[in-house]
């Protein structure tokens, strides 16, 4: 009886999932594909593929995304492992600050990056003093990579550290008492155990970096043009929306290919570690002399703590700059040099638009985030049960909204919502934002689920717990931290989103991101740093409360340490 309910429930959820996926992801994509066809059908594709700048920019984009993803992976891994040996309080504080930095919309932090990378920024000053030369990173490859790293490192750290739990530290301790060296422990225990999460982290950073629009636009200085910017250039400046759609489909296909390959690779990595890797590990550990152990430990710690410092600077420095810029009296982006001014605070506080927008945004983003987490949970569950091919397809679908440039997705949604008369409604924005937030929610939940042990539920089932009880009191409880992280990031994805909102919100729905966008495009200056500072303070309050509650509960584990 129980199993029948179970299969019925599963079929029902499968149906709901399929329906939601069609509505939220596949339908707008189909519209975009239809839109990209001309006469003859592939005319725009032929033109896109024949344009030399397209391939140049796709190559440049791949280079930026690869560099960013590799750096995020290395830094993220070092940070996550270093935090493993840190005190619980420090670890919790670090995670919270890292996560909550994302509370400040990227458009605001991007401006701080403009200042940091610019002529008067700390990097140029420091290099000027030390090496007597200019180091203006604005408009350079490394400027874009650093900005993207700032935006994406928190996600990488969270995805990776979600996999670091007590089982891992226990296993490491056991291995150490059995005489395994640090290199051996890392290669034989840590790496295999973290492999799926590492792939996930690489995937999410690569895909978001490759689809980046705001960061290269703000700090690229026009010289670092990335693929999605080219879509915008075709669409908005050359006014060739169909050519833009064709280019977007080409980019989407390439990125989906990367997603599918990486998802397949991740499915592979959850299986036992290939013997070749083990053999290599053995060789490596042979190479390390036993007497060198303490050197390896010290070296590892040195690397780990420097990664911690570098990561913290990359994530936090722009936030401090946001705070400082908000006090700049002149309408330009620079640190205040002579006097501090509260004129921008007076302006923002006195503007009713900001307050109204805050209320609307909260409503829409909470709904969109919740919807997105539900979808992501169902997708992750099916991805876990499906075979390798099925998992790749589900991952590709769930990642699609991150892969398709927003302006093209916006056109797809626009056509659909016009058809059903929903343009300008909050529901339209909520649905589109739920889709936009799906990739990050899916990644966080699926990487948590991939380590979830269904044995708990089997035990509960044998003790007579029904499916709903099992879901509520076991699965959801054990996965609660992952759900919290997914919910937060899904909320933030909607909170920050501009392009879809621009198309779908119509005239009555004003959101904070839209307000920021309209301010940013017309007058770059400290005004935006004010709501940024407010959000920063709000996030600090949230962090303080969370730490306090965490301290009271006396739980030693930080975010993601769900397997207690």
């Amino acid at each position, binding site marked *: 009886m129980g199993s029948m309910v179970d299969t019925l429930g599963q079929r029902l959820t499968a149906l709901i999932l399929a329906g939601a996926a069609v509505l939220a992801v596949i339908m707008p994509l189909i519209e975009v594909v239809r839109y990209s066809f001309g006469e003859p059908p592939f005319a725009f594709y032929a033109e896109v593929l024949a344009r030399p700048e397209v391939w140049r920019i796709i190559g440049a984009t791949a280079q930026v995304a690869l560099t960013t993803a590799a750096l995020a992976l290395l830094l993220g891994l070092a940070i996550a492992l270093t935090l493993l040996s840190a005190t619980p309080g420090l670890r919790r504080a670090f995670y919270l600050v890292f996560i909550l930095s994302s509370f400040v919309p990227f458009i605001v932090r991007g401006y701080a990056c403009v200042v940091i990378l610019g002529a008067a920024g700390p990097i140029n000053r420091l290099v000027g003093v030390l090496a007597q030369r200019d180091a203006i990173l604005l408009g350079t490859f490394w400027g874009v990579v650093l900005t993207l790293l700032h935006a994406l490192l928190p996600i990488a750290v969270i995805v990776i550290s979600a996999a670091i739990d007590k089982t891992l530290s226990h296993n490491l301790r056991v291995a150490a008492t059995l005489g395994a060296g640090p290199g051996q422990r890392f290669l034989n225990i840590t790496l295999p155990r973290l492999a799926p999460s590492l792939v996930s982290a690489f995937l999410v950073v690569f895909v978001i970096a490759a689809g980046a629009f705001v960061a290269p636009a703000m700090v690229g200085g026009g010289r670092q043009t990335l693929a999605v910017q080219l879509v915008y250039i075709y669409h908005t*400046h050359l006014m060739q929306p169909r050519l833009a759609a064709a280019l977007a489909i080409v980019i989407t296909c390439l990125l989906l290919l990367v997603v599918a390959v990486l998802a397949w690779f991740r499915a592979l990595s959850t299986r036992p570690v290939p013997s070749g890797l083990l053999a290599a590990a053995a060789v490596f550990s042979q190479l390390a002399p036993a007497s060198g152990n303490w050197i390896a430990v010290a070296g590892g710690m040195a690397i780990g703590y420097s990664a911690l410092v570098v990561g913290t600077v990359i994530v936090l420095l722009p936030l401090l700059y946001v705070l400082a810029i908000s006090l700049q009296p002149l309408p330009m982006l*620079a640190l205040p040099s002579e006097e501090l001014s509260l004129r921008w605070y007076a302006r923002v506080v006195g503007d009713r638009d900001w307050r109204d927008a805050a209320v609307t945004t909260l409503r829409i983003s909470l709904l969109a985030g919740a919807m997105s987490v539900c979808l992501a949970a169902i997708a992750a569950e099916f991805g876990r049960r499906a075979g390798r091919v099925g998992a790749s397809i589900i991952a590709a679908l769930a990642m699609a909204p991150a892969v398709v440039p927003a302006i093209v997705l916006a056109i797809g949604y626009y056509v659909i919502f016009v058809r059903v008369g929903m343009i300008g409604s909050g529901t339209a924005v909520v649905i589109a934002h739920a889709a936009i937030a799906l990739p990050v929610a899916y990644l966080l939940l699926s990487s948590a689920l991939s380590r979830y042990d269904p044995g708990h539920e089997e035990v509960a089932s044998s003790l007579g717990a029904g499916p709903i009880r099992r879901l509520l009191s076991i699965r959801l409880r054990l996965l609660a931290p992952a759900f919290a992280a997914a919910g937060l990031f899904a909320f933030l994805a909607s909170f920050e989103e501009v392009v879809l909102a621009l198309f779908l919100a119509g005239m009555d729905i004003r959101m904070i991101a839209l307000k920021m966008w309209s301010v940013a495009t017309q007058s770059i200056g400290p005004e935006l740093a004010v709501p940024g500072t407010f959000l920063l303070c709000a996030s600090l309050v949230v962090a303080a409360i969370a730490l306090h509650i965490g301290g009271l509960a006396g739980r030693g584990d930080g975010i993601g340490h769900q397997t207690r």
Partner: protein
Amino acid sequence: MMNCRSQTESSMNFCRHWIVAGLTAVALATMTAQSFAEDALSGELVVIGFGGSYGDAMREIVIEPFAAETGVEVRYLDTCCASIPTAIESGQFAGDVAVGLDVGGLLNWSGRGYFMADERLVDLAKGAGVPDIYYHPAMVITNLYAYVVAAHGTDTPLPTNWAEFFDIESFPGTRVLMRTSPVATLEAALLADGVAPDALYPLDVNRALKKLDALRSETQVLFAESPADLVNMLATGTADYAIAYSNRMFAAAKDGLPVTFSYDQGLSTGNGHGILTGTRNPRAAVALLAFALRPDVLAAMAERTGLSPSTAAGVDAVRPEMRDLLPASEKSQASQIPLNTNYWGEHRSSVGDAWVQWLTR
């Protein structure tokens, strides 16, 4: 009435006639007034424009006084313009009036059918004294501005023509250009390369890009994503010299930012407003454009934003101490070269294409 009281009965009757006639007249007048009221402006108007300082000025100087005077309920949306083409093409109501677009953008949109053509707009422009090159049934050009040489810092030596702007030896430093459009940048390059102002059009795009190649090989050239971005790069010293919008430089200098600029060889053009296809209130829309063309309104906008009035009456209404800072003053106009907006209206996409190819090289 005093007279009536002292009259005989017959004259009372006569007087009564007058009273009746008077009352009738009053009634008639009221009715006419009512029918005028019905005929007068009413309803709602949705205006789409940019945000930031331009949006604030537009709201305070044009939108709110117009609404107070006419009773039309006006909503100003500052999220121009990415979604408007999609909206109009799919038959949705995109708003009534789009404000603050440059001539090239207006021509482009009008060519794509996004604006309602209405001869009343030409009459408006003629009546207000807008220069005749800007007569067009789909737009009203309310403001003039120029692309000018600008520099960071108030004591940086300022190039006095485009040849000097391209001269890295005499004027060393980073340059910033607009990325989103080649308008004015190509003209500046050609003038710097020795092309005479009256031989600019049709533009020799290859020659201009070659000149820009030379600039790019000699010094760092940055490209701004938006006019605001350009001002910021110049004000913060990230760039030393720019081809900048005169109104932005006017506003920046007024705000106390460390920038200078000059109208020497400035490339002048205009911006203005158009009535969107699918408008629900065309009469109020035309009335709003007429309001925006009033000399006092134009002058107030100019003093606030640095966008010069497009009419002589408007320029005259600007306070004398500010007049010379505007591109349409006699003093600054002498050295300027007008951009050929018709050329840009026709060749925007082909030249834009070459520009994108060059930018991404």
